[in-house]
């Protein structure tokens, strides 16, 4: 499922291809599924127990990508990035343009000056080449406003997995797994749109639910490379899912973090705290919805996120899924803390 999800297409603003895959899968075991006007996919699974706690899980479907802004006379596409992309990761890469391949590169090293070779290229200097002979031929393939994604296959290597869009197809894949089973909580699962362009989808999707707790499932930054000081590594791959205390968009709810920790400890699941306040996710908007929702983020560490080659560890993914599962079970057993 993670392979299918990461290889599908879903740049912020055009998430339908990935939403369709999720819908087709989830409808096999859920009946209460709806799309809202923004394209958020909202699934509800009622508990079979009496007076169950209400839990919202949220993961975003969208990925960072490119949008075509112009077609040049020579038949190249100019583009802008949708979400945060460092232009460095675009050079000498392939992209998928409406089902066709295109390449992004720069003039040959032989044609550059020593000065140029020391300067990063900005997005406006780059263009997509699909092999079109002229503007007319290129326009038949794509128009301004069409989206492109990285051309990157899901690949297992060493003890890790490489794919594009692990942020946040990880969360989508985990929620699909969770929805296959019944839980002793009233479970709301929101597959949201437009996280990468400003947490837009979750703002709308989480309204009117009034859950007791909300957990955002994410792929987060991981910089555990040799030479990087321990305190700058953010998370460590292979050390379990990361709980965020504070990021640029929100502060994790202490009560909910305590519950997650309690479940992790009780069931022997490794976890870590995200050691950086950089970046923000849908928790930032969910925690201020409808007068406030107790919200926390649980993330799988991903190296090189927002690039074509995100890398994660299989055991972190499994432990993240397990932690959510035991959390839901414990929640049903113990009830809410402030009952």
């Amino acid at each position: 499922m993670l392979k299918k999800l990461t290889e599908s297409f879903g740049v912020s603003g055009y998430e339908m291809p990935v939403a369709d895959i999720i819908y087709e899968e989830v409808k096999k075991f859920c009946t209460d599924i709806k799309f809202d006007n923004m394209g958020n996919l909202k699934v509800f699974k009622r508990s079979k127990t009496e007076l169950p706690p209400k839990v919202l899980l949220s993961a975003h479907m969208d990925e960072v990508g490119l949008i075509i802004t112009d077609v040049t006379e020579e038949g190249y596409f100019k583009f802008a990035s949708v979400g945060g992309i460092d232009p460095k990761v675009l050079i000498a890469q392939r992209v998928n343009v409406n089902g066709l391949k295109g390449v992004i590169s720069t003039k040959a090293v032989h044609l550059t000056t020593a000065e140029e070779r020391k300067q990063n290229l900005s997005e406006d200097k780059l263009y997509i080449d699909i092999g079109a002979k002229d503007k007319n031929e290129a326009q038949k393939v794509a128009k301004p406003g069409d989206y492109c994604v990285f051309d990157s296959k899901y690949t297992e290597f060493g003890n890790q997995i490489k794919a594009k869009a692990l942020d946040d197809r990880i969360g989508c894949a985990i929620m699909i797994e969770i929805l296959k089973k019944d839980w002793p909580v009233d479970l709301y699962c929101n597959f949201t749109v437009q996280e990468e362009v400003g947490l837009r989808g979750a703002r709308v999707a989480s309204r009117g639910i009034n859950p007791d707790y909300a957990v955002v499932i994410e792929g987060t930054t991981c910089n555990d490379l040799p030479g990087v000081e321990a305190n700058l590594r953010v998370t460590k791959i292979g050390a379990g899912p990361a709980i965020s205390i504070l990021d640029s968009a929100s502060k994790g709810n202490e009560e909910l973090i305590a519950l997650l920790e309690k479940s992790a400890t009780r069931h022997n699941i490794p976890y870590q705290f995200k050691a950086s306040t950089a970046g923000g996710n849908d928790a930032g908007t969910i925690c201020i919805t409808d007068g406030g929702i107790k919200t926390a983020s649980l993330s799988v560490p991903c190296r090189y996120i927002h690039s074509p080659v995100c890398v994660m560890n299989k055991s972190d993914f499994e432990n993240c899924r397990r932690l959510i599962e035991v959390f839901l079970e414990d929640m049903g057993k113990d009830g809410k803390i402030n009952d």
Partner: protein
Amino acid sequence: MEILKKLADNSGISGYENEFAKSLQKMLESYCSQVEINKTGSVVANFRNYDDNKKTILLEAHLDRIGLVVSEILENGFLKFKALGGVDDRTLPASEIYVLGKESIFGVIGALPPHLKSGSSDDGFVKIQDMMIDTGFSKEELKDKISVGDPVLLKCEFCELLGSRVSSAALDNRAGIAAILCALDMLKTEDLKYNIKIAFTVGEELGLLGARTIDCEDVDLAIVVDVTHGKTPDAKPEGTFVLGSGAIICRGPNLDFGITKKVIETAEKQGILHDIEVSAGNTGTNAWVIQTLEQGIRCVLLSIPLRYMHTAVETIDTDDVKSVAKLIAECVKGGDLLA
């Protein structure tokens, strides 16, 4: 196209060409009376039967491709590396690679995500010596798989773009080899006025090494086939060629004035698409070395326009390969090239 795909998906990194040389030797055996690999590792052959009374034309193309080499194995299975041949540092982040050790190991060249950049280091330029390959293995696990000095292949499978355009790593100079093989195919039943000798040489990207050791004692003319720069929006227009403009015939002190003129006339007479490139001194190709072998060898240089040279996304128009093949065949099969 098939042959080009087969050639481009082969390794043959400069300095590590053995396997690829052997497969070229096999491919040539169907056309040639004698094929051998010389002491330097280059493939040398006589096309069909050699006649002592005829003059001899050498068809030359380099068989190596640029790559990287492992220089250090670090904690957690990260690798430091150096370039083999001219590589633009800026084209490496987020590349997928294979380390060709005892086993072939997949890996990625990491890139820091935009979230972790502070305002000041935003333009931080990453030099090749600061980059690392992520193999996904531990240092311990890597011990029996790879070692320092193993070559690293930039991974990018052959892919078709629009029309007759294709993209792949290593089209420099697999495109040149494909043109020669195509020409041999056209000549296999022709009456030949000249002996034809073939040399696919090693180490061009490391300083035109292989071309220095070809036995040229009997050679009256060398036709060197390589790639030249394709026109792109970011390169200066002079000295670069639109893809699809045919065989690019080079003129200048490195090339024989009279014979080159005859080649141009042949292209005109036979209606073969072509253009003229001017090189005022060193062409940067094996022609530069071959010209001063023995008592001096007359050289002709034919090139295929190629965009984004020395990246994983080199792009050509296969029609240009065909134009070069046709021009070679027309020039060598008869006429008065060597009066």
